[in-house]
């Protein structure tokens, strides 16, 4: 190709050396120039030193280069940027923290005003093209109010919004941004080009990642003072499920109040605990109380500050009760010793022989009524003449709590094998492939090799330890059902009102972007340019 170009250039130069440019003259004596004799002294035809660098030469050179470039670039394409309108997606935070009073009004009101500002800026008819809008809210979930509409539609959707008693899940936003872009329109009638997120949270660091759309994060939060409950944890007796203690974490954000007070009220409303909160050593204070009777205990922090949802919480304490058990083992001595009630219809726990042949005959796990199952193996061998050797074990398993593995290697199991159909994970296994302990979270199930022997020896202590470890683990997994007034599930940081605001981007970036149109072949344009140059050279300069 290079040779072809050089040949073309040389050819053009030769033409302009051998074919000099005749200058035109219009004169009155033209009639006397007819049939003139040829000049006796002819000029040399090829004059390398006198190439005619005239405008036609350069035009013809341009034509030649364009044609050669068209051949060279055939198959090459370029994308023509085309101005498009905007698709603006307004995403508003409606988590509980948006109820925080800031400058005399809830943060949500400020956020709604900011959203109005976004709508007005995006709708500037002079600078912007056609604009469509989406509107959603987010907290622990995303709710889409307007999938495609105009500013008035969004304004109507903004009316009546209230903070929800929920935390904030930023993963929702990240996932939304990752899946939104021009190439993957989430709405067929409104291609989103800009996402404006209005929240009281600072812009997360990942907002700087490269997304296919323009992202503007507007943090409308301002630091304000707040004191409130962060988390509380009821501790239960695993055998009778009674709440024995409640641990509470209280935090102050901004300037801690001097006279903060933590109170707990009994089910009857009578103050039960009254504890001044001293924030001098730090901004977090821990408290605890022991419920004395069943009922709903109400915790309160005063003064609560700008954010109200963390000022109080309720904890229902169930009365202690005996365990109802579906005992399917022949030895029925143990339930009586533990004070359990035998109930096969509505059991709290089901105890079954370990190696269950064939398919599971008992529905041990359903979505509506999961019942923990304890599988018990064939038991231990009396004579330990053949000690066991441990093959593997899960050290972190709660079934191995307080277990001395050296003792295990002095014991032996009766033949039994792994129970089938339970998808148990072995916790302790010996080299002969005997399963000593196993567990499964779904379905909730534990396997022990045998019942407690009741003897005061290594075997007796081991069998009792692993049996009660399994019981405790199974009964601890039972879910805690919060009442309507409980706030303990609130997102932990909702009450953090002292964050430094951090926005990302500004509304000035609300302008139409460019999108790549269809790829266009380059060579036709080069030929067009060549044609225009040729036309000029042939007509205008003639």
């Amino acid at each position, binding site marked *: 190709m290079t040779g072809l170009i050089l040949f073309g250039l040389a050819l053009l130069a030769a033409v302009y050396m051998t074919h000099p440019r005749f*200058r*035109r*003259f219009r004169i*009155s004596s033209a*009639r006397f120039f*007819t049939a*003139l*004799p040829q*000049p006796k002294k002819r000029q040399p035809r090829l004059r390398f030193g006198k190439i005619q660098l005239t405008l036609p030469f350069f035009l013809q050179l341009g034509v030649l280069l364009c044609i050669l470039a068209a051949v060279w670039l055939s198959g090459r394409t370029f994308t023509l940027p085309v101005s498009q309108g905007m698709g603006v997606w307004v995403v508003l935070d409606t988590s509980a923290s948006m109820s925080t009073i800031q400058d005399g009004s809830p943060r949500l009101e400020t956020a709604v005003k900011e959203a109005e500002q976004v709508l007005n800026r995006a709708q500037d008819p002079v600078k912007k093209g056609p604009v469509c809008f989406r509107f959603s809210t987010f907290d622990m979930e995303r709710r889409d109010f307007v999938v495609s509409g105009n500013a008035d539609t969004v304004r109507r959707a903004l009316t009546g919004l209230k903070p929800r008693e929920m935390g904030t899940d930023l993963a929702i936003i990240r996932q939304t941004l990752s899946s939104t872009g021009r190439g993957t329109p989430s709405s067929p009638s409104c291609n989103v080009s800009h996402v404006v997120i209005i929240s009281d949270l600072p812009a997360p660091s990942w907002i700087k990642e490269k997304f296919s759309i323009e992202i503007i994060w507007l943090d409308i939060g301002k630091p304000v003072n707040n004191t409130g409950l962060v988390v509380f944890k009821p501790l239960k007796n695993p055998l009778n499920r009674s709440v024995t203690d409640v641990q509470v974490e209280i935090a102050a954000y901004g300037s801690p109040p001097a006279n903060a007070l933590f109170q707990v009220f009994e089910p009857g409303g009578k103050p039960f605990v009254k504890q001044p909160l001293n924030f001098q050593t730090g901004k977090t204070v821990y408290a605890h109380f022991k419920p004395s009777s069943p009922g709903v205990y109400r915790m309160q922090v005063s003064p609560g500050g700008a954010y109200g949802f963390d000022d109080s919480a309720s904890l229902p304490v169930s009365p202690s009760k005996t365990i109802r058990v579906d005992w399917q083992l022949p030895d029925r001595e143990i339930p009586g010793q533990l004070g359990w009630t035998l109930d096969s219809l509505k059991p709290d726990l089901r105890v079954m022989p370990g190696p269950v042949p064939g398919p599971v005959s008992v529905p041990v796990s359903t979505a509506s009524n999961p019942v923990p199952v304890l599988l018990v193996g064939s038991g231990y061998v009396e004579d330990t003449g053949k000690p066991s050797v441990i093959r593997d074990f899960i050290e972190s398993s709660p079934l191995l709590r307080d277990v001395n593995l050296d003792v295990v290697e002095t014991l032996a199991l009766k033949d039994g094998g792994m129970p089938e159909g339970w998808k148990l994970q072995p916790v302790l296994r010996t080299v002969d492939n005997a399963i000593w302990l196993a567990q499964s979270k779904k379905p909730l199930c534990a396997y022990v090799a045998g019942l407690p022997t009741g003897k005061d020896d290594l075997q007796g202590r081991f069998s009792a330890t692993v049996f009660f470890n399994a019981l405790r683990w199974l009964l601890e997994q039972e879910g805690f059902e919060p009442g309507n007034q409980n706030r303990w599930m609130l997102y932990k940081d909702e009450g953090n009102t002292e964050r430094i605001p951090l926005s990302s981007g500004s509304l000035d970036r609300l302008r139409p972007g460019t999108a790549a149109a269809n790829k266009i072949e380059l060579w036709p344009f080069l030929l067009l340019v060549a044609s225009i140059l040729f036309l000029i050279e042939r007509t205008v300069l003639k």
Partner: protein
Amino acid sequence: MKIDIPPLPLSRAHLERYRVRSRYRDRPGLVGGHQMRRKGQSLEFHDFRQYVPGDDIRHVDWRASARHGKPEDLLIRNFAAEEQLTLLISIDTRDSLFLPEPAPKAHIAAWLVEAVSWIVLRSGDRVFLHRLFGSPHGSVHDLYGSGSSVRTRQVLKQFLSAAADETAERLNLDILQRYLKPSVIWMVISDFYFDMETGGRILGRRLAEAQDGSRWIFLVDLESWEYEKQLMGLGPRKIEGPALPVPSPSLEIDTPVLNEVEERIHRSKKFFRDHIGRGGFDYITWKWPGTKSFDMPSFFQDCFDNDLDLQRLFMRESENR
């Protein structure tokens, strides 16, 4: 072809001085035999007319002047036998007169007509303006009286703005039969670039016939060859212009070629002059300077003021004739 005629570079005062100076000089011997009607030699009174400088003071009627005219006016007695000077100006309007483009001959021709006509009309004489080539329709205009000097320019514009047609190279001479009276001075302004076998021969014959009637023939040759030669220079050229059988011939212009063209022009004009006849006519040549640029008004003024042959048109008849 459309062309704007620039204003005459000579002022009225300049033309008046030129006219008076010419009338106070005696015309030397004429080149050829032709007849000039003598004025004021009859004893039969005809009428009065206003005195203009240059008139014989002896013809002033002092009594009539004192009775009818203003103090500064004098009346001249006209006698019946007196004939006016009649100047017939034929102007070439072919395409070649509009060249060379930087200094067209048509400008000089128009200025010359305008200046000469003004002087003649100022003297109370008559001017016929004639378009030498093209259609005979509207090709002759009769101008008489000093007020007609304004019309001169209008007629010139009409002549020079006339669209070129198939008759543009055809001589327009038949219409002149009734204007070529014996006492007429026939002035032809052209570059005399003719096709010899047609234009040159015909015009020459007509001029010879006019001479036979004792008319004064006065030819003004506007020659721009030297200037065009400088414009062209040497080298490869495409020549364009009127009357080319092959349009835009590409030529290698060198000195022999230029000499050949110059010789052709010389031969052509000689051929034309040879066909006029006896040779008793005035032939003046105004040559464009051989430089690439010059000032046309200055060139015209220089030619006009210093051309004694032209000045002879306005001189008094010599006493010894």
